[in-house]
């Protein structure tokens, strides 16, 4: 190929990627980096009005956060969401995927679409629906429980029930997405392997543990990494369903950041929260990858 051809190809390459790259730098890279810088300033409502009120304060924002009980409450709640939510969501998705993948199943596409439907619906709208489903007095959930003789639970009003209540909602909303990913992985597991185990007399549980799970281990890791990140990013759920309550039991890190930043206009402190959030997600993901490597999953 001629040099001129090469040159025009290179020019076109930069030309076609430049608009997107520029947008990414201006609206993503710069703000993300600026978050770190901002976290070392006392940017607040006064600085918003007049930039000359802005000062660098070193680690003051971080020190204040460490002393703030609500910050630790938000951290603790978010960790609970991760610890309880990840196994719950991953288990639910895997169960749904195995069900839809079952070779005995008829009308497969119908069930697949039905199970996926919650994922594409609007989060805020479904949160409003679930707030109503979980209503203590006339919610459908408590009605169903009453059929089994279980006393009404104050799902969104009791600090011990509020976090599990939101988790049930989150599980319902997101399992369809993970189910599709699991489904793709399950379809790569050779049927003969399972067949052989079946002939050897292995039951359903043994086959799951010794044949299916090892075969899809990398996907289990991928789904749990994605779910951890999703749990760290819960915001609209508590915003709509509980406003962080009762007794701050559903204040998540992002909810805390939103209030710091846009309710109290402590943008410096909010940026520090954002940066810590990033470190948390990164740390948990790295630990998962390390564990998976040691376990031979990847």
């Amino acid at each position: 190929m001629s040099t001129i051809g090469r040159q025009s190809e290179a020019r076109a390459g930069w030309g076609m990627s430049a608009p997107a790259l520029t947008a990414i730098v201006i609206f993503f890279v710069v703000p993300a980096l600026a978050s770190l810088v901002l976290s070392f300033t006392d940017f607040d409502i006064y600085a918003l009005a007049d930039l000359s009120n802005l000062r660098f304060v070193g680690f003051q924002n971080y020190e204040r956060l460490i002393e703030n009980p609500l910050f630790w409450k938000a951290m603790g709640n978010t960790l609970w969401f991760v610890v309880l939510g990840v196994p719950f969501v991953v288990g639910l998705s895997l169960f749904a995927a195995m069900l839809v993948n079952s070779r005995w199943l008829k009308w497969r596409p119908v069930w697949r679409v039905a199970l996926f439907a919650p994922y594409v619906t609007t989060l805020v709208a479904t949160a409003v629906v679930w707030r109503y489903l979980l209503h203590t007095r006339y919610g459908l959930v408590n009605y169903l429980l009453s059929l089994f003789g279980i006393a009404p639970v104050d799902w969104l009003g009791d600090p011990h029930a509020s976090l599990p209540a939101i988790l049930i909602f989150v599980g319902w909303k997101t399992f369809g997405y993970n189910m599709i990913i699991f489904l793709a992985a399950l379809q790569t597991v050779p049927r003969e392997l399972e067949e052989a185990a079946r002939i050897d007399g292995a039951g359903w549980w043994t086959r799951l543990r010794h044949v299916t799970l090892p075969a899809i281990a990398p996907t289990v890791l991928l789904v749990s990494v994605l779910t951890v990140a999703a749990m760290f990013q819960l915001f609209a759920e508590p915003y709509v369903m509980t406003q962080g309550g009762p007794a701050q039991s559903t204040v998540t890190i992002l909810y805390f950041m939103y209030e710091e930043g846009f309710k109290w206009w402590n943008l410096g402190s909010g940026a520090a929260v954002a940066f810590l959030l990033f470190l948390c997600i990164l740390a948990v993901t790295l630990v998962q990858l390390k564990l998976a490597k040691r376990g031979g999953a990847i």
Partner: protein
Amino acid sequence: MSLRRWTVTLLAAFVALLTIAPLLWMVSVSFMARGEASQFPPPLLPDSPTLDNYRMLFGTFGVGRFLANSVLVSTLATILALLFTVPAGYAFAKLRFRGRDATFRMLVAALVVPGQIGMLPLFLELKAMGLVNSYAGALVPWLAGIFGIFLVRQYCLSIPDEMLEAARIDGASEGQILRRVVLPILTPIIVTLALFVFLASWNDFMWPLIILADQNLYTLPVALAAMSREHVQDNELMMAGAVVTTLPVLILFLALQRFYLSGLLTGSVKG
């Protein structure tokens, strides 16, 4: 054998019903008269179905305005995202230029950084640009769609180089090749990406909540959240609002689910 078939299918039907029950319930309650749903046990179907809630929603609460806002923002977000990401994805896959691979590696690394990290500085940045409280401000995050670039690039890798070379020998410019040769091949992935962006921008909540202060500019989710705070007790009304908010995306998904589900796999299972 046949018994097993029925057991598994019935189980799947039960799980599916349980999954979509909240959505069916939402639709049912939206047709109930005011106060009807606040009983125990809750009625499953409206006593005498009424459109009152929808009338009130569009009349008194002016939801038509928010619906129009959502349609406008999501449509523009989709068009802009395609204009920005499709050429870039193609360039990263098929055009040789210095620094291409290093740049792309950095983009992939950036995928792990959640967008919320930079939200506060982005707000300040847009304030300086005078874009706070405007549709333009709401659209900005969709221009920087790294995932879209990634998706288009994956798809473009399967285009044979010979095809592009042949077009070059015929004297086509790079822009002409993109428009006349590549875009027709990319149709399925463009539909997929358009659907992704439309659904995601329609459903997005946190960013429009932050950037849109003026009620007249609210998108449906932001308006619904605001309404539901004031009308906690009006369940029938809120369910109608939830129907108006979710129905467009559900219909779109059902119509184009083949594209959506296959696109999901191209994007998430990275080999």
